[in-house]
């Protein structure tokens, strides 16, 4: 028996990825979550962070938000902001970081928004 399951990342305009994986780590709203084969059916949503997909190699994707469904060994990630980490340039990351930081300065943010933006900043700093 293989210990692999199917993972799909879909954005509104295209299928970004469909492959097999042994382990996927997702930045769920309430914390990092590792998913292995035969996980129980699950629906959750994401905060800004990094999805890492482990197969024989490891692929990483940056996401800002998204919805995740796991059922019958199918992991489905719907996100309008998923980006392949290796395709993001330093300059682009810095730009995003700047935008996020200036957004954090705005006073009218709700707690939830602050939470999300601060996660975005942390993640961006981490990969920079």
């Amino acid at each position, binding site marked *: 028996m293989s210990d692999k399951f199917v993972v799909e990342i879909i954005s509104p305009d295209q299928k970004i990825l469909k492959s097999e994986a042994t382990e996927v780590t997702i930045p769920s709203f309430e914390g990092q979550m590792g998913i292995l084969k035969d996980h129980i059916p699950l629906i*959750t949503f994401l905060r800004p962070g990094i999805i890492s997909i482990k197969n024989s190699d490891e692929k990483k994707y940056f996401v800002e938000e998204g*919805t995740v469904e796991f*059922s019958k060994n199918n992991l489905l990630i719907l996100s*309008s902001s998923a980006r392949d980490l290796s395709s993001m340039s330093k300059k682009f990351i810095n730009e995003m970081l700047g935008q996020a930081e200036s957004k954090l300065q705005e006073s009218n943010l709700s707690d939830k928004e602050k939470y999300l933006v601060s996660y975005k900043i942390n993640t961006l700093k981490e990969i920079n």
Partner: protein
Amino acid sequence: MPSLDDLKKRIKSVKSTQKITKAMKMVAAAKLRKAQESAEKGRPYSQKMQNIIFNLTKSINDPQNAPRLLVGTGQDKKYLCVVLTADRGLCGGFNSNICKLAKSNFKKILNEGKLLKIITVGSKGYDQIRREYGKYVIKKFSFKEKKNISFEEANIVGNEIISLFNQNEFDKCIIFYNNFKNVITQIPQAQQIIPAETKDIKKIDEVDFLYEFEPEEDEILEDLLPKNISTQVFKALLENAASEQGSRMTAMDNATRNAGDLVDKLTINYNRSRQASITKELIEIISGAESL
């Protein structure tokens, strides 16, 4: 009887019209392929999202406390109609079909004594609706300068709808767009997006097990439903873009053919009158020679 020169001019002008319509058809055909592709690529996202929402709503036990985007305000007084059309004309009945459907719905809503608000996306729709229902239009969008529809545009419209909903500006929201079936057939559609209609969601597969939710169902729904609005708008925009090109292609194909027919007819006319004038001249010469 038009003179030979007039006929010649006429043929020339029809021919150049034909060239234009032919070129437009080619352009539409090329754009159609692209639009169709992106419409097809966009389908899984919206379909899967609907599926997740369907799974979520199944497990909601307490409809009273469910998010308002899903169950509505409980009232049925104010309607928001979002009419999605193209920014360019010359595409057959594409824009008028949507507007016709929208207008018949407007009429029904107003006849029932309910409040009507309209948002138009695309300038052609606004032009058609303005005459009769101009005072109901609260906002108009146009993405004329955009070459390809991206999710951002859908988000702009989606966020507008949601913020209006949060301000209690309407109870129900309906979007009008053309569904792309194939190149010749586009079906104008009215789809209710708030409250979300869950009954006609096609189930991809029957799920008989329960999901684990993290965090609670309500919280997920609150995050997901606004996204779903944008997704639905995006889907409608993509379908519309493909339909527009398909419709334009067929319209221009017809126009090219009609122009061809017209050219044939005019050419026969032209040749006949040329022949007639030659015959006439010959008769004149011969009868002149005979009389000598």
